[in-house]
């Protein structure tokens, strides 16, 4: 790569220098270099890499691994926050049950989210080590990394790391002399947001349309190719080695009094902040601290609202910045922590336009399986476009309210449409006046009553 290209190229911006990132406090990022160059096998092994694999596979049972994960309370970092240990304990294994799959959900397409990319580009072996441990706990025979197709550098580094790990005996038969066999393949996705939904991801991996599957049965009962399958986010899996290396108590203690959840979180800030980027901080760190680290809002602008963790989380107001950024606290405030990467919105930005942009994304990315999502989301887009142009009619905002409700949880096939409805309903709640400004017209004339034609 030429220097010119290299300078143009985007690099994940971890905004903590090596002095701050220590093994005891930064399990995800302590090995990384300030200059962003990747950590490959030699250095990874020198920095205690694969020690957890060697120890765990030889000294512990799969059930002990699962118990450790439960105790550590590692909650799914992909956004849903479901306990990884509990998920693993529900995976079918044992008599007559075929060994299944560990699938790493690396299809990072949530708007405003760029955390997994850092881990995969700069410390691919950490992910591989996490997957080996997850495979051991879940008795999986094979692993897949379902990677967002645009992450070309991550793909290159993972490919190299997989080969290194295989050559070093960390993948393949009889890993670390334990008798456990496991290998991993990299699968690059073709670019659909819905592939981040775990069952749609599995369908896509199988070569089917990326439509989500009904649950139950959950992937742990019948997943990829009908076999027990565990799907975990990159960051979740990257937490596993540290949990097993240093113990669940240690991990749980990382977040101190900030949160009931254990460990650290790769937080980030994007939007009109002075210094956007990523920080590994104890889970439960407040939005205020995070925004401080990001240098605050750009000069001349005021924070109007923020999305706590991606486009599918609900808007929060400046007053919510004091809340600890963990799953339960943000959930109580009416939003979701999601991926934990804040998107800040300032008073210079139109909420209606922002919503139109977001809903256009979600409408486009609907897989087209269930009706509310497939046909309801485009309607919200059309209405938002009308409001944006000042062509709204009376009743439009009420229709948006209704759509936001009807696209909510339990009514659609998967969480895609509820994810699209959450920012919409919170925007309508907090910034209704901005929407009302788009209504310039009376309701169009109603159709005349049809002539009654008797009974059915």
């Amino acid at each position, binding site marked *: 790569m030429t220097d010119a290209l290299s300078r143009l190229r985007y690099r994940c911006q971890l905004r903590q220098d090596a002095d701050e990132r220590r093994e005891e406090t930064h399990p995800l990022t302590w090995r990384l270099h300030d200059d962003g160059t990747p950590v490959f096998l030699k250095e990874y092994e020198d920095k205690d890499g694969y020690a957890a694999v060697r120890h765990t596979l030889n000294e512990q049972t799969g059930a002990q691994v699962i118990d450790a994960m439960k105790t550590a309370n590692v909650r799914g970092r992909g956004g849903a926050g479901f306990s990884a240990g509990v998920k693993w304990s529900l995976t079918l294994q044992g008599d007559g049950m075929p060994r299944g799959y560990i699938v790493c959900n690396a299809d990072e397409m949530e708007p405003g989210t760029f955390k997994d990319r850092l881990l995969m580009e700069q410390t691919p072996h950490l992910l591989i080590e996490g997957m080996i441990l997850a495979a051991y706990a879940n008795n999986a025979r094979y692993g897949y990394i379902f990677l967002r197709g645009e992450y070309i550098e991550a793909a290159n580094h993972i490919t190299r790391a997989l080969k290194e790990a295989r050559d070093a005996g960390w993948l393949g038969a009889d890993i670390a002399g334990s008798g456990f066999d496991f290998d991993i393949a990299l699968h690059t996705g073709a670019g659909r947001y819905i592939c981040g939904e775990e069952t749609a991801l599995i369908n896509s991996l199988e070569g089917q349309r990326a439509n989500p599957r009904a649950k139950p049965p959950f992937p742990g*009962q019948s997943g990829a190719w009908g076999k027990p399958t565990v799907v975990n986010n990159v960051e979740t899996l990257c937490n596993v080695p540290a949990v097993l290396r240093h113990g669940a108590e240690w991990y749980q203690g990382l977040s101190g009094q900030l949160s009931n959840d254990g460990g650290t979180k790769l937080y980030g800030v994007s939007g009109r902040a002075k210094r956007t980027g990523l920080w590994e901080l104890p889970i439960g760190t407040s939005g205020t601290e995070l925004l401080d680290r990001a240098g605050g809002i750009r000069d001349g602008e005021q924070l109007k609202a923020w999305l706590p963790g991606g486009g599918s989380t609900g808007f929060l107001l400046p007053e919510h910045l004091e809340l600890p950024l963990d799953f339960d606290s943000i959930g109580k405030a009416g939003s979701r922590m999601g991926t934990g990467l804040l998107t800040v919105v300032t008073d210079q930005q139109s909420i209606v336009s922002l919503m139109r942009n977001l809903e256009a994304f979600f409408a486009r990315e609907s897989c*087209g399986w269930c009706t*509310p999502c497939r046909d*309801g989301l485009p309607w919200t887009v059309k209405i938002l476009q009308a409001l944006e142009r000042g062509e709204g009619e009376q009743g439009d905002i009420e229709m948006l309210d209704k759509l936001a409700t009807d696209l909510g949880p339990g009514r659609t096939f998967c969480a895609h449409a509820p994810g699209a409805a959450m920012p919409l309903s919170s925007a309508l709640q907090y910034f209704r006046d901005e929407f009302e400004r788009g209504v310039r017209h009376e309701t169009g004339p109603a159709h005349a009553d049809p002539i009654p034609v008797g009974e059915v």
Partner: protein
Amino acid sequence: MATIHVDGRSYSVDGADNLLHACLSLGLDIPYFCWHPAMGSVGACRQCAVKQFKDADDDKGMLVMSCMAPVQNDARISIDDEEAREFRASVVEWLMINHPHDCPVCEEGGHCHLQDMTVMTGHDRRRYRFRKRTHRNQYLGPFIAHEMNRCITCYRCVRFYNDYAGGTDLGAFGANNNVYFGRYEEGTLESEFSGNLTEVCPTGVFTDQAHSDRYTRKWDLQFAPGICHQCAVGCNISPGERYGEIRRIENRYHGEVNRFFLCDRGRFGYGYVNRKDRPTQPEWRAEPEAEPVTLDVNAALDRGSDALRDAYRVIGIGSPRASLESNHQLRDLVGEGNFSTGIAADELACLELMADLNRTCGLPTPNLRDIEEHDAVLVLGEDLIQSAARLGLSVRQAVLGRREALAEDRGIPTWNAEAVKTLGQDSRYPLFVAYPVATGLDGIAENRLRLAPDDIARLGHAVAHRIDASAPEVPGLEAPLAEAANRMAEALLAATRPLVVSGGSLNSTAILDAAGNIARALSRRARMGGLALVRREANSTGLQMMGGQTLEWALEQLEAEQADALVILENDLYERLPARRVDHALSRARTVVVLDHQRTPTLERATLALPAASFAEADGTLVSLEGRAQRFFQVYDPGYIRPETRIRESWRWLHALAAGRRRESISDITLDQVTRDCAWRHPALAGMVGAAPGADYRVQGVKLAREPHRYSGRTAMRANINVSEPRTPQDPDTPFAFSMEGYNGFDRPRQSVAFAWAPGWNSPQAWNKFTDEVGGHLRAGDPGIRLLEPVPGRYVYSSNIPQAYRRSDDEWRLVILPRLFGGEETSARAEPIQARAGQALAVLSPEDAGALNIADGGGVRVITDDGQWVFPVRTEAGCPSGLLFIPAGAYAALRSGMPVSLAASGDTPRDDKGLTGEVRP
């Protein structure tokens, strides 16, 4: 069983169902789209939302999709709940966003599930004011019309076409609100079951192209319960008529036979009824070559009776495509000793053996629904998709049933269709197919062997021997066959319900004996198996049970001058025996009376040709390959719209001829009299009277209506002929009236249902109102009477084991293979079937083609004593050499087993009427 509480009322339901299935079975209306009783639930459309409460104290509840919610004991749900109603209204409103306002010009209108559901949910105002998304449509062949703008994206089409029927060329393309259902490029849909898309599709995306050409709204059609005459499976159909033409055929639900689906030959093969060249008046030919003169009924009967009376012996040739009643009346006219079945000897031998096996092999004959419950299937010498397509579809469901069994083991309900598919992947119950060429079920078979007919028999005998060592051993069995036989025997023995399927397609009694031996061996090993035997024509089974001589015998009687008159019933002899042979025999007869509804070469040889009624204009009884006697009912009176026609049921003509021959005055006769007489004379057929209720059957004191109550234009129908409207035709033969007056409801259980309609349910989904549970049986019981059941006794194994097949060095042999499109006499005369069939291809092994210097796509010249024919060739690796495979229906002169000479042909076989293999009447 479980108790559920719906809107405060308690019901007892099957605990294995989902809530939608349970509620619909209770007669409660919940709107739905993507769910289908034969295809289960996928939860896509979200239309069937109901409110479910945790317990009696929960007054908030939450919305669930009833199709995806398992029935739990003490479940509390509300259909009427305000939130659920509003959500369901929202769903229809979303579905209608892009749906065009084209109901008045849409062919689905009037039997459209989307219309019904829209009315049911109360959506009647459009609030979406933006542009609609539009699609381009595709040409999908002669059967199916495509209008994608109407699509509501329920995914039923691809789920039926691919998952249920095994098609591969229809798919879902695109995403978000731009999902497109079609082929990757325009072209004829390849599946033999594509017609079901018209009923599976809840709206007008896939409509009946053949109907489109002569379109009539469902409510303006006159219906009667019909039985498909296009093969021996006996599917129940609902043919619809307007202006003296059959306009479309829809599935008629039968819980034990076809259930929801038909094959395309049955659905689109009715065109012969509407042909303009049909005989409609009696025709008399004084001299064999003379132009015929038309006669009126009385004159025709007089001349016919006189001629028959003058003859010293009259031979009757019956027909396996005519009803039992018509065959019986012919037999009655000519006398038992003078009656031929009209079936060629080799085929009749197979039919007799099959009937014998059905009674004596120890295993029952399963109906189609039963077939789907078997867990290992061996098919010997049949390509079911070609010879009995609907049965083949059932075999497919049997084989796929393994996925449901696996799901149940894992606690996944069998109705959870996508989950069952995911878990099962490609696990299937074992299916073995032995046939000379590739078959339609090969794709799901564990093993398929391409064998010559004799080797198929040897394989079958070897399987029987492996199952029961007292079955005869096959001498000198080749190692690969022995190995295959071992595996087949092992799989059949391991199964709970093994199924053996065979039949007469290859005209081989040896194969049938082998199948019978396997069945016998399984029954001796106390397996709850089944034996299904495929016959060729609609009434082959019944006619064999009635009995009669071979067709060759009849011709011999004439050739030997043992008889000088012939009455031929609905049978084209040229379809069955070589033309020279038939010509020769017919030329010996002084009188040839032919009754038929088609202008066949045989009819052209008639001294007296009588216009017979087709299935659409006659009543009668057929016996299906399952041994089920089923009644079909007259749909319309051909004389009402065309008063000049003199079409009568064959049994009426024959009754009149018999009376005239005896110089008796001709009294009228009714169907019930003929049926009773037939049953009385043939003890094996005694049950046929119960196949359907007699003419005196009434519901609520009235006859049954053939026409929907919205039938329009009745009084104006004949206004172009005469302004005074005649009395509607009376029907003395059946409980149906040619009228909208009469009972057409669903609340009184009945077996004979002309068309399914219930208030609010105009689409085929209305059948759910007629069944004991959705997808179950008609509440009055499924129609028809089974006549062929196993009888106890000690039966011995057959030792009819042929020598291993060795190709002859100096001659080629023909094997005629059944062909779904174009391979059946009457449907081959229907235009859409002709268009779909295309050219008949001959099949050769690549080695043979190479030896003959024929490239794939080249032509082969078949040379016999009777003439020469050229066929385009398809080579198929693995098929036995020394044999040339020709599809049925190409040329009657070419018969299985015939030695022929072959040569490469430089002629382009296309577009030359004399030389193509294409079927053109």
